[in-house]
């Protein structure tokens, strides 16, 4: 039976990794700001983090629609 291979491209995986590194840096920075009492940065940071997550989720689940190269 010929089962179509469903794969994510290395480029997409790389982008997701970069997004995660940005998320870690963002979270650490935000945590430091909150500990300093600067809570006003939280709405903006949440928006940025949400956008990054949306991109990562899109790339990760988009792979189910991508036919990868044969192995």
């Amino acid at each position, binding site marked *: 039976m010929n089962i179509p291979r469903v*794969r994510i491209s290395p480029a997409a995986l790389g982008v997701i990794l970069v997004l995660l590194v940005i998320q870690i840096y963002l979270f650490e920075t935000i945590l430091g700001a909150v500990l300093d*009492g600067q*809570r006003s940065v939280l709405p903006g940071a949440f928006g940025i983090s949400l956008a990054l997550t949306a991109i990562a989720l899109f790339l990760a689940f988009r792979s189910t629609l991508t036919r990868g190269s044969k192995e």
Partner: protein
Amino acid sequence: MTWWRRAFPLDLAEESHFSRREFARFLALVSAGFTTGIGFLWMWKKPLEGASDPASGPSGHPVALGMASDLKGGESRLFTFRDAHDACILLRTSKGELKAYRQTCTHLGCAVRFKNERLECPCHLGFFEPDRGFPVQGPPSRPLSAIAIEARADGSLWAVGELPKPTLENLNHRADCPRDKTEVQA
């Protein structure tokens, strides 16, 4: 056969069960976890342990700290402010000024103590200067949370609120830099 398979000839039965796609999904969900964490911080109105809360303004319940005259230069006294776990330290500097700070070190949360004219964290040897709570040595990179104190007419001291942490925006460089003062006077 790739070079690393020759170098590490381990045949793991389940190594192919975790695909690249699953790994990507896992990373994306971790990213979503960070977003949830930031959202939680946003929604959680109570300040984190050791963090200042200048937005709360003056405290509705001032805490009595005793008589100002009881504290000599170089001495300190511990008290609790927000609740029983909110340990703070009141001190009198060698200049005679009274200062109060939250006792939580901004590095990893150990309790700081006043020793040899500076605030010292014994866990990792971090030091803070007593005038504004700035870190001057060791691993801490953020200043201590300062407590606003009030001296009343009868000589008693009260902790009445929290002070905003000094930042580059609210720091008066002209007023705080001795070299600038000298230049202005000259």
